[in-house]
């Protein structure tokens, strides 16, 4: 889109502003809207352009500061200033076949009616500026009420223009008719920020001497960048402010009229973010202080029915929450890792934390990678916190714009928030798609308030986090034991030919069959993990030959009946389920044994081996399941997985969490 750009002199300083509705800006700076807010009426106002591509307007806003000489600047000086700032863009535009450099910025003009302000002419005298009924008190009153409503609905949001329109349509019906004018008013009041969705990532102007020094240091450190010039350098600096990726697309755009308007290809699925797309964000508000009262671990443990191990971890996390206020704010949200073994009851541990933040009036977010987890979690949290307004967000969810005190969302939905939450809990941070996706990590960072807190949940944190935790650089708490207080089943290794060889020979090795027979005899459900989807079908055939009386099924990511089969497996209609890593997480089947074929495969890393092993022995009735790694080779991943499981059991034993071994 295109916006107006002007500068005003107010309180002795020059200030450059964007305008969605220049009429309103003239009113504002002439001193209307004095009720309630106090702001300086402008002494002078120079309209730089009635309609400039938004991206360029934002760049001007970022780069043009106040200067004492501006008092004497003529239209030509302003023209030269804009040209100097936008030189790379102008040149790129000319090369791409757009307007010539000389044809831009022809309409710089002083807005009349401001210079005579010092004469003490009254407010009524300035009203003639608009010449319409736009200046009537009723209009102004309505507009400021609309702005209030808009600000409250957009709090913590980061939305594109069409998303704002969708939100208003759903949430406010017709209450906000001229939302552009209302947004402009809120912007002038400093309650909303207007920007381009793809811009040079500065976000705000670096101010004062400290900013300048930082700039110098940054330039010095990135010396090679000096060699890159013009467009190449600018392109490198551009960022999609919503997802943090570098914009890769550049096309002619009918909305701003430029021949090369950049857009971001990484987050297209949530609406296109481009250099001329309006991104509206609410101004950040400070995080709430979590109430220290009522947050004592023992009280929390009793209230939420936590085990000793769970309560210990929850206590550590609560302590972290409460201590946050003492630390220096401004270095971004702080992280806390909750490293809980599979089946430890991670969700319950977060309840006291959510409670602390919600009861202090803050907003909390639980983000999980998958949609079905969101759907499973929502009713549980609704039961635990009936008083908190809940918003459930995933791709295609109904009620996308409902404001919630407690938000449960898939990680992609975080792109629509900006410094909204006091507490962000990220579940299974090592799982797809959150893991290794810088876009989602960026989105999560943006969604949390600067002085908010991140709680990372995982049974198998990535190596980097594990290292940070063990060196003491990352505050963390471990839950080394399952909620039922029994140790994790330690995997055993059984040497076996690779599966493809068994398939070719048409027989499975006796060791495996014997173990399976034992499991079946004790009435266990059997997970049989294969490394490749292609192996599932032949293994099924071989197994059915050996166990004709047992119901055996296979499933994979390509199976449309997957959820039905998992249900049947849980109901014990299916006794053996042959599957891939698709079922490594989030499936709880009572009384189950786990067999991992080709455990030396490169597709199984330490984390997925631990997760698969974690499917066994989850219920209180059958806490000791069998876990078996079957492979010709004994690999590093298998060794490390077993070491991790043993380590957790050792810690649990040392801390006295294991049942039957006594509490000290």
């Amino acid at each position, binding site marked *: 889109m295109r916006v107006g750009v002007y500068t005003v002199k107010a309180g002795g300083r020059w200030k450059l502003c964007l305008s969605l509705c220049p009429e309103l800006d003239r009113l504002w700076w002439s001193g209307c809207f004095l009720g309630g807010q106090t702001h300086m009426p402008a002494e002078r106002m120079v309209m730089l352009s009635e309609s400039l591509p938004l991206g360029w307007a934002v760049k001007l806003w970022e780069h043009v500061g106040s200067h004492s000489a501006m008092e004497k600047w003529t239209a030509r000086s302003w023209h030269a200033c804009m040209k100097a700032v936008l030189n790379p863009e102008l040149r790129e535009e000319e090369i791409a076949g757009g307007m010539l450099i000389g044809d831009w910025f022809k309409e710089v003009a002083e807005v009349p009616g401001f210079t005579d302000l010092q004469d003490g002419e009254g407010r009524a005298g300035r009203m003639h500026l608009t010449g319409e009924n736009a200046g009537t008190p009723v209009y102004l009153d309505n507009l400021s009420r609309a702005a209030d409503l808009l600000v409250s609905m957009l709090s913590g949001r980061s939305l594109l223009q069409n998303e704002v329109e969708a939100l208003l349509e759903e949430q406010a019906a017709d209450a906000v008719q001229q939302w552009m004018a209302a947004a402009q008013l809120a912007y002038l009041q400093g309650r909303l920020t207007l920007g381009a969705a793809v811009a040079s990532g500065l976000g705000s102007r670096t101010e004062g001497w400290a900013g300048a020094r930082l700039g110098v240091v940054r330039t010095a450190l990135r010396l090679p960048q000096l060699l890159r010039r013009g467009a190449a350098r600018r392109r490198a600096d551009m960022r999609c402010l919503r997802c943090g990726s570098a914009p890769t697309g550049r096309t002619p755009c*009918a*909305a701003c009229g430029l021949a090369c308007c950049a*857009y971001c290809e990484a987050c*297209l699925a949530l609406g296109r973010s481009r250099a001329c797309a309006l991104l509206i964000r609410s101004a950040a508000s400070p995080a709430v202080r979590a109430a220290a009262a009522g947050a004592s671990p023992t009280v929390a443990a009793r209230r939420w029915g936590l085990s000793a191990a769970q309560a210990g971890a929850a206590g550590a996390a609560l302590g972290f929450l409460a201590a946050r206020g003492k630390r220096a704010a401004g270095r971004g949200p702080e992280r806390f890792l909750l490293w809980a073994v599979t089946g430890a009851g991670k969700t319950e541990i977060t309840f006291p934390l959510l409670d602390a933040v919600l009861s202090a009036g803050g907003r909390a977010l639980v983000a999980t990678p998958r949609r079905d987890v969101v759907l499973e979690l929502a009713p549980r949290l609704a039961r635990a916190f009936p008083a908190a307004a809940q918003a459930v967000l995933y791709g295609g969810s109904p009620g996308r714009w409902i404001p919630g005190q407690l938000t449960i969302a898939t990680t992609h939905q975080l792109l629509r928030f900006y410094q909204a939450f006091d507490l962000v809990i990220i579940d299974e941070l090592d799982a797809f798609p959150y893991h290794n996706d810088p876009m989602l990590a960026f989105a999560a960072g943006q969604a949390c308030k600067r002085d908010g807190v991140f709680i990372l949940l995982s049974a198998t944190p990535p190596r980097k986090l594990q290292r940070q935790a063990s060196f003491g650089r990352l505050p963390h708490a471990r839950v080394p034991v399952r909620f039922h207080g029994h140790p994790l089943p330690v995997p055993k290794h059984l040497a076996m030919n690779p599966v493809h060889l068994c398939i070719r020979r048409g027989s499975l090795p006796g060791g495996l069959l014997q173990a399976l027979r034992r499991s079946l005899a004790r009435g266990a459900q059997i997970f049989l993990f294969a490394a490749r989807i292609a192996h599932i079908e032949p293994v099924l055939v071989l197994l059915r030959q050996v166990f004709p009386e047992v119901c055996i099924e296979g499933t994979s990511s390509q199976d449309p009946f997957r959820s039905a089969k998992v249900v049947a497996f849980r109901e014990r209609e299916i006794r053996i389920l042959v599957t891939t890593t698709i079922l490594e997480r989030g499936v709880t089947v009572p009384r189950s044994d786990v067999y991992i074929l080709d455990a030396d495969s490169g597709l199984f890393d330490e984390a997925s081996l631990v997760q698969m092993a974690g499917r066994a022995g989850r219920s209180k009735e059958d806490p000791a399941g069998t876990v078996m790694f079957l492979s010709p080779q004994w690999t590093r991943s298998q060794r490390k997985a077993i070491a991790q499981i043993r380590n957790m059991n050792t810690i649990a034993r040392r801390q006295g969490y294991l049942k039957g071994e006594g509490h000290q």
Partner: protein
Amino acid sequence: MTPLSGWLAGIRSLLAPAGIHCLICGHNSRPSARLPGICAGCEAGIPWISRPRCHKCGRHVGCPDCSRSGQSAPIVCNRSAVAYTPVMRDLLGRYKYRGHERLAPLLGQMLDSAYLQLKAYIEHLQYPPQVPTEKQNKYHFLRRKTANLTIEWQADLLVPVPVSDSRLTERGFNQAERLADILSRLRGIPQLPLLIRTQHTAKQSFKSRAERIADMKDAFAVSPDEQVNIQFSSRLSTVKASGRPLQIIIIDDIYTTGSTIRACAGAVRLLCAGYGIEADIYSLTWARS
């Protein structure tokens, strides 16, 4: 992963054939030879309409519409590149609604195959293949050359279906115009935005057949742009000299009931009548539902 295996993987990737990030399936795989930006597997899955069942509207399945409306349609015939299957619908949706403009060259290239089909069909109508006589065979080499020269058919003008101004600013581009642009570059046929949309109709995809047809009446008008009119009349003068009707192709992304195309063709026909010239109007769309 040990450092050594990392190195080995790096070296192996140097020796591996170049893969591309396929625009349809998103996997890294062997690129297609014909179409830009997609893998060979996805290319094989494209539901080309290579033999339309209905010669009038280019539909791949039986078509009651063309036999139902007895009146003479304003277009000679329509040709479409692909059938509008769910995969293709998703592809078009990603381009048109989500704005994945990297898909434009791919879609344009696909539209080109529909153009070739249209061309073959018209040449077949105008110059039905003759049974080669012995004499022709004798001078085969020369005959073929002269014969080819007379048979070559080419359109004179591409006219994209316009979108309304508000949709244009919302979307940032007109998909039909982008497709026409690519075809124009590939085939050397000029394209002109002759038409504008006078009414902002709601999205076609939410409407029934009858609603669409009623809506489309008077939805298009001739562009008031001076520059366009000058270019059009200069184009006319070159064709007038040859004495044959003007060959115009209307370009759009999808043909569903054909009401949009017919309305556009009506507007173009009026314009040509105003200039006192006869015109054969065809249409090309990327997909046919």
